[in-house]
């Protein structure tokens, strides 16, 4: 990739810049994505190196950290040795490599490794442009995009950003700029190249200049680019584009320069900017090789143990009558609950599938003006489900009222409400309680509210309200087939969505179901259960080969992962099932208790000697506590995605590190279900995994840093202080104990079928071939393990077994 062109191509430059910007939407829509998406066409390790060179980002842990992990036993000696041996066959080279792994000294701090054109320009003019521009730029763009922090919108409604600026300039006695000439210049709506001509002068440097300029505030530029492409992320519509912002920024630069050098200043010529001809210089390779080996050793130490413990043979399972079956989200947080459920209630089976349960739609809660997407982000649903009739009484809190910020009422409020504040604060500090501003997963949909799941011929805003029987059947069929639940239905099948609860947490959406676009999965669970219970749907399913017994009932539920509580949407449950349901609920309750008990050991401040009930209570309190920056650990430590039969993973200690997608290879000989699973699991789980990965390796560039000083800006982002860049990415309180590891897929299916799917879908193949996710397959018959390397699968012998054997010999 290169930025050196003889001629400046505006569109090309803009699309290149947009590629490198963080693609995070407003905070209410939390969608995980690969922070290095710009480099996804490269191999993982190459991309890591390039990101470092281009952006000065840290894409690996430091040498010290890896070595510490090694000495703590988190990186196994055998695995490291194995990787080194695979790298070089020559023993001397191996020894040299091993020596370097432990002794290499990083010569430099990581920083963008190219001669900075912008620095040269600043030097040429003798001005610190950033210092001058950033507060001015941020202030204006923030004010334009603000969704409701400010009390007064200074811009006219529904006007395009640049037009609004021009309007402001002409409609005010003050100028946005220091120099009146700049405002005349702005009125002419200059183009980007025209402005660059004035400031940078040398055509060949334009692209790099813009790139560097925008990377000084990736948060703002990235958000503007997101609003440009998906305006829906803001409730109050705004029309802004990255190029408009760039022009404004260039105008501010012109303003700064002309303030010092006068209106007729001279732009630099090529001779003024010597030596700025190479954008990208590759560094010596050694450091990157060493880092990649350390990273792989860390990953494979864990993977190898898991793969080594996979069952060699599967016991023939006797078909046993089950009391109930439960379908969960593939989310890593559901895995341990499923494990405990199996232990508590052996006559139950659980399944995993992406938590939107194959039903994609927009959801409109009762009384709401807006819709919210309830399916994976890349999907654009054509359906709308409305909540009917049950008004949720939202408690109000005067502390957020604008009165306290108005002159006279502000005085009255502070002299009255102020004394209530201290009581609230003292109560909130010493006894966590419900707050009007808390987020509860269970509030997403009222338990007694009806939903418009049936299509009755209505539509709104181009969306069909509800689904036809045919559409329902397809969705239910696809999910049941993909998880292999096509026969032996138990009397009750629970469909368990999940969500999270927290308070005082701007990242609340990041804790909910990733497959539901950062919302709780309760409506999806209810929609799916409703469809699967509908007699017409069952009839149609029967025709397609899935026979659900009449006595089987689907019951929706929602698992609050923060509090470890489940609510059931069981008001329509037939009377004869109620007793059994009550009994199973106690099993769930016990499983939740054990889950909480297990989960508590990741929190330093919970005394591990306490009883399970107490721990459960302490965890639940975290969701109500004003001062809890870590309501739960979310996807911390995620590293695996297993697609297969329960027998594959039942005996493994997954320690909440795995996404589990149920899949029966024997029922999917053509791989059509697997294709569906992978096309959701790879981008969704891979996105989560890589966002955690890079937020952990670089807290400042890809992560949001510590959230304790964060300041909510315009209701769409967080920032530090009042004049800083936006902070996309995950805060350190989400990822600090995360062990960065790529996601290893373990798929129970023949390699030929997997390969066929990958070849059919170049997008998926890109993830796998470039090792953004790692792939292994277990042959359903021979139980042999194959690992995807280069272009295809090769046999994998777990190193641990290998060495044990050699010891035995």
């Amino acid at each position: 990739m290169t930025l050196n062109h003889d001629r400046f191509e505006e569109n090309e430059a803009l699309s290149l810049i947009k590629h490198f910007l963080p693609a995070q939407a407003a905070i209410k829509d939390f969608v995980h994505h690969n922070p290095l998406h710009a480099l996804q066409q490269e191999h993982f390790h190459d991309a890591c190196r390039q990101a470092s060179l281009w952006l000065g980002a840290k894409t690996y842990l430091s040498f010290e950290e890896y070595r510490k992990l090694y000495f703590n036993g988190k990186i196994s000696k055998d695995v490291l040795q194995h990787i080194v041996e695979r790298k070089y066959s020559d023993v001397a080279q191996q020894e040299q490599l091993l020596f370097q792994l432990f002794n290499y000294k990083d010569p430099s701090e990581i920083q963008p490794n190219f001669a900075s054109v912008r620095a040269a320009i600043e030097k040429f003019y003798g001005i610190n442009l950033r210092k001058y521009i950033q507060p001015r730029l941020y202030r204006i763009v923030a004010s334009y995009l603000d969704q409701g922090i400010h009390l007064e919108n200074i811009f006219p409604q529904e006007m395009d950003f640049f037009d609004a600026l021009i309007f402001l300039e002409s409609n005010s006695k003050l100028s946005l700029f220091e120099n009146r000439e700049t405002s005349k210049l702005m009125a002419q709506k200059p183009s980007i190249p025209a402005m660059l001509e004035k400031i940078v002068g040398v055509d060949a440097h334009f692209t790099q200049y813009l790139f560097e300029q925008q990377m000084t505030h990736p948060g703002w530029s990235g958000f503007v680019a997101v609003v440009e492409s998906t305006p829906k992320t803001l409730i109050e519509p705004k029309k802004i584009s990255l190029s408009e912002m760039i022009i404004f920024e260039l105008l501010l630069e012109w303003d700064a320069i002309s303030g010092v050098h006068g209106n007729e200043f001279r732009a630099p010529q090529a001779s003024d900017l010597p030596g700025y001809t190479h954008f990208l210089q590759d560094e010596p390779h050694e450091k990157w090789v060493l880092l990649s080996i350390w990273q792989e050793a860390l990953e494979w130490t864990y993977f190898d143990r898991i793969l080594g413990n996979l069952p060699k043979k599967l016991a023939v399972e006797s078909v046993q009558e089950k009391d109930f079956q439960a379908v969960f989200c593939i989310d890593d947080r559901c895995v341990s609950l499923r494990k405990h459920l199996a232990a508590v209630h052996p006559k139950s089976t659980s399944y995993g599938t992406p938590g939107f349960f194959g039903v994609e739609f927009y959801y409109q809660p009762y009384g709401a003006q807006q819709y919210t997407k309830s399916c994976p982000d890349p999907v654009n649903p054509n359906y709308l489900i409305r909540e009917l009739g049950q008004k949720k009484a939202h408690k109000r809190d005067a502390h957020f009222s604008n009165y306290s910020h108005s002159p006279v009422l502000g005085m009255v409020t502070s002299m009255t409400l102020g004394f209530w504040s201290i009581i609230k604060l003292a109560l909130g500090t010493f006894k966590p309680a419900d707050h009007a501003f808390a987020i509860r997963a269970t509030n997403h949909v009222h338990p007694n509210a009806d939903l418009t799941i049936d299509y009755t011929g209505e539509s709104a805003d181009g969306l069909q309200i509800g689904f036809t029987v045919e559409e329902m059947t397809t969705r239910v069929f696809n999910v049941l087939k993909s998880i292999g639940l096509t026969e032996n239905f138990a009397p009750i099948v629970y469909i368990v969505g999940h969500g999270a609860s927290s308070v005082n947490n701007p990242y609340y959406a990041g804790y909910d179901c990733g497959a539901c676009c950062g919302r709780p999965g309760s409506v999806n669970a209810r929609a799916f259960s409703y469809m699967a219970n509908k007699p017409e749907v069952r009839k149609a399913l029967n025709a397609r080969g899935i026979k659900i017994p009449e006595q089987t009932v689907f019951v929706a539920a929602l698992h609050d992962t923060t509090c470890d509580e489940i609510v059931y949407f069981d008001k329509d449950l037939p009377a004869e099932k109620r007793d059994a349901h009550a009994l199973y609920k106690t099993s769930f309750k016990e499983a939740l208790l054990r889950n909480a008990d297990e989960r508590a050991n990741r929190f330093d401040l919970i005394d591990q000697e306490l009883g399970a009930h107490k721990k459960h209570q302490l965890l639940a309190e975290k969701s109500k506590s004003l001062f809890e920056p870590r309501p739960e650990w979310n996807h911390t430590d995620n590293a695996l995605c297993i697609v297969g039969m329960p027998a594959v993973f039942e005996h493994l200690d997954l320690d909440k590190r795995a996404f589990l997608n149920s899949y029966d290879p024997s029922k999917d000989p053509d791989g059509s279900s697997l294709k569906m699973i992978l096309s959701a699991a790879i981008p969704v789980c891979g996105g989560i995994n890589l966002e955690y990965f890079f937020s952990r390796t670089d807290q400042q560039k890809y992560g949001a840093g510590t959230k304790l000083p964060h300041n909510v800006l315009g209701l769409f982002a967080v920032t530090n202080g009042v004049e800083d860049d936006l902070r996309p990415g995950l805060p350190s309180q989400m990822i600090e104990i995360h062990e960065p590891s790529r996601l290893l897929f373990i798929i129970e299916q023949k390699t030929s079928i997997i390969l066929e799917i990958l070849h059919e879908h170049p997008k998926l193949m890109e993830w796998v071939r470039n090792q953004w996710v790692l792939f292994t397959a277990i042959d359903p018959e021979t139980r042999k393990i194959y690992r995807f390397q280069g272009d295809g699968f090769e046999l994998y012998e777990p190193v641990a077994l290998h060495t044990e054997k050699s010891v035995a010999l």
Partner: protein
Amino acid sequence: MSTLIHLIILIPLLSFLSLLFIPKHKEKAIGNLALMSLGIQLLYALAFTGFWLFNGAVPINLRDISLFEEPNFDFYIDFFFDRITAVFLLTGVLLTFVVVAYSRLYMHKEEGFKRFYSTILFFWFAYVITIWSGNFGTLFIGWEFLGLSSFLLIAFYRTRYLPVKNAVKVFSVYRIGDIGLLMTIWAGHHLLHQNVLFAQLHMDLITHILTEHAGATLFISMMILITALAKSAQWPFASWLPRAMEGPTPSSAIFYGALSVHLGAFLLLRTHPIWENHIWVRGIISAFGLITFIVGNYTARVQSTIKGKIAYSSSAQIGLIFTEIALGLEVLALIHFMGNAFLRSYQLLISPSVATYQIREQFYNYQKPVKANISKWSTTINMLSLKEWNMEKMQYFMLFNPLKKLGKLTMALNLWVYVGMVFLLYVLGFLIAQHGFGTLDRVIEQSAALVLSFVALTLVARAYADKSNAKVTWLLLVAVHFVLDMAITLNHHLNWVETTVYLSGIVISGGIGFAILYYLERKTRATIALSRYSGLVNKYKYLAFAFLLAALGLSGFPITTTFLGEDLLLSHIEDSQWLLATLVALIFIFNGIVIIRIYARVFLGSQEKNFNSPNHLTTL
């Protein structure tokens, strides 16, 4: 009684000191110590106030030790308790107690957990001294400590660029306030010929003098007002308040939402008897309060960040409190203070929730705003508010531009030429002092003093402008004090004891600071320039702390005798020498600013080199 009062001062100090001995990974012990200490103090404050009320609520004055005594000069500690102290004490202890409890979990695992708590406890100690002070000298000690704790908490994330930049900024504004206080002490000394006690301000004798000398009283009042304006984020200083919101949210809540920011109002309440009979002063105070009220409210309306909005709303309400005080509505002002402190600190603590609360509101109740006709005037006022009424520019214009210009002038000379000239002047001064006393005309002596203090000011300016080498800048700042000492010696025949008091602290802290810089240059094998943030605190934690102490010593902080020396120096300027007094005050202000800037640039700031953090700070 005196033991009871001593305890109230001692407990915060002791808990701060004992906290320093707890290892930093023992979060629980640290949190518990702070919580227990504040809990005891809460109960104690309640009991003490109850006891005091029961006994008739008579103001208490307690004269304490003298720190330095001379026939004409006595610097002593004095404590004073009345209903103003009571209200500030109870509000403060309650809020600090809650915030300390709140932060135990909130700050868990944060790098700098212990630093956070020790700074909070240090702040609390300073706060207690301030509100209990019975004379300006004691108040000044507390005031300086408060400024330091603010600096440390704003720069809590000390390797990031903006927190450090803003901490220096707030420190600079505070510095103006400190010097206002110093000038108050100076003028008060000459006017009243004694170190006046707050308890005596009501006495007839004092009231009489104050009414007699309207001019001097006006000066004192204005100095007090400047101090209060700076501390309470009033116009034209208000813009520092939102920028101070860089630390963890609880520290912002307690400092800039509640306690620290209301201390300007405290100062006005405390000094009320000085200016209450001067209608002009009351008018001016009200005017500043009302201007802040208007500016703050308009500015809050266009803030896009929640903390910025709360900051300006709070500052506007404090403007109103100022006006109330000026109107003599003391009780109303006290109630307003409590309410505003509680409200804003809670609003700040729950500010992250604005995302959930308001987004939900918007989701349910969003209505497209009606297209309004925007008038030219409302746009203009909005624009002005968005630019924060140009307060930033104004401060820059008043403070840094003149200094910078002076610095640029001195930069025209080669460093050695310049230093040589200063040295010659110093020697000349020395010779005069040695041989000339009594033989020369007073006018000549006083002119020489003026010239030398101007030279000292150019030294500060040079130190401000010359960013090429931290060591050189440091030495220039040390030299400032010597030149200044010589100037005052010429002016008023400073004796050896006094000179020793003043310069011993300078020599010690100057020496330590220089040694540290020298050592660091040897270690890092590079010149430490001040044109960038070097962020050395990551590698040299203890040296950074030692350097901070040295820097504080050099800027006359109450940890060395220089602190007393500053006061002494001022007492040797006669009340007719306004120009000299102003020069000395300016030197003290800028000297402190440049010193803290050295600390910030050498030890703090960005270590991560990326696009976001400008390393080279060539300014416009």
